[in-house]
């Protein structure tokens, strides 16, 4: 079993950090994981995306071209990536950033979830991840919480509680 996850949004929305939380969670679940950021000029304020693979077997290509799980934090990334989502996969969108009129009718048994993440919290990335992990059954709450704790570096410990609350907000919403 392998999950290819693509997280996309603007630079500064915490896309790469959200990916780290997922990768750490996968590691806690005893899986093979890889985390690959887009590190191009987009890091300085354009679009940012992050590829995370969580797999039972060794990770081959670390690049996610057809995600099983897509998380979009803005309209442009939804427009760019939604159609590449695999059959039977999931799309999660920040409904406060992507209007219902921008959403396509999900084809091929794709589960599409829109939640107003950035209205619910300043840490919309965590809200979306909380929701996504629960709906896709990627990990249990305890594993996800542990993953977040591992992803927050010691020098930013004071950020842990706020992130944890946002994560729980998303988890409980879905």
């Amino acid at each position: 079993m392998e999950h290819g996850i693509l997280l996309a949004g603007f630079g500064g929305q915490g896309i790469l950090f959200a990916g780290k939380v997922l990768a750490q969670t996968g590691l806690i679940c005893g899986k093979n994981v890889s985390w690959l950021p887009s590190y191009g000029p987009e890091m300085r304020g354009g679009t940012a995306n992050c590829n995370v693979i969580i797999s039972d077997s060794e990770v081959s290509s670390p690049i996610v071209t057809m995600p099983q799980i897509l998380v979009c934090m803005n309209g442009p990334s939804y427009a760019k990536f939604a159609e590449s989502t695999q059959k039977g996969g999931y799309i999660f969108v920040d409904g406060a950033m992507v209007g219902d009129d921008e959403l396509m009718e999900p084809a091929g048994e794709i589960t599409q979830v829109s939640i107003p993440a950035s209205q619910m919290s300043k840490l919309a990335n965590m809200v979306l991840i909380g929701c996504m992990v629960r709906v896709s059954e990627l990990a249990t709450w305890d594993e996800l919480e542990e993953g977040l704790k591992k992803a927050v570096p010691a020098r930013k410990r004071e950020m842990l509680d706020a992130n944890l609350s946002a994560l729980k907000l998303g988890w409980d919403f879905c």
Partner: protein
Amino acid sequence: MAEKVLMKGNEAIAYAAVHAGCRYFFGYPITPQTEIAAYMAKNLPKAGGVFLQAESEIAAINMVYGAAGAGARVMTSSSSPGISLKQEGISYIAGADLPCVIVNIMRAGPGLGGILPSQSDYFQATKGGGHGDYHMIVLAPSTIQEMVDITVEAFDLADKYRMPVMILGDGILGQMMEPIELNIAKTPEIIAKPWATTGTQCKRKKNIINSLNTNAPELEQWNIARQKRYDEVIANEPRAKTDIEGADVIFSAFGTSARICKTAIELLAEKGIKAGLIRPITLFPFPVYAYKDVKKPIIVVEMNHGQMVEDVRLAAPNVRVGFYGRSGGMVPIPADIVDYTLKFINEGLSEIV
């Protein structure tokens, strides 16, 4: 179970270098390898070492020359355009028979190119980017764990053969994170360096570190002695990861491209085609042995325009060799490799050219 931590490839190289006994790092920042310098800046002083951000790549490689001459384990790192700047220094280091480790986290070229991943420095790394008859041992990891293991080994190989060793990665390997074993299993093999300029203490004749010799017969002898060491390297050190049992077609790729090939192999299996993989781990010495018994066509996949193809052709002269590659920071997509493979197969799977 051994503790595993997530680490970026760049950090993993630096982490392993400190474990290997590297105590001197000289570098100049360039994307996508700057995390190596950042890690060293933070951690080398704690280990009693010296981190120095030089005024340029050229200065950095010449500082490496100095520290290596004094017998220290020393490393520099850069990315493609910066490695080009270092070539003169690398040639001098090779000419003075000094061990050191040079990391190239390749980005797209030529020229200033772009910051995205590439493998287009294969020729420069394996055929000698600087002047003169010299080689570096070139190691090409394809996972973050392998970056750790190979880095420790790189220092040992450099000391053993008294020559520069290059770790050749790309922007993807430098930037991506994967779990690594926090405990590095391999103990560095620290050997005596009686040739190093450590001060005579008035007890021995002075050692001289130099590549200049205007006495032609003598300089030729220096070259011959060096070539003999290269022969030993070619005899003892080639390595590759090979999985070609029962395969109808065989990919050959290094680093990130080898991983992308593995995904293509999975996709081909779904179509009933069994594909194999020969992944060179040493690019110099090229693992000729791995191709010896190959009877099926080979497809070379690289993030460049086919630089490894000629080495594969030389190693496997009797089979058809195809090539698929992307460049400029574009990365091969497994589905496109599959399309190429199907076309390649339809053109005939004859065993012999």
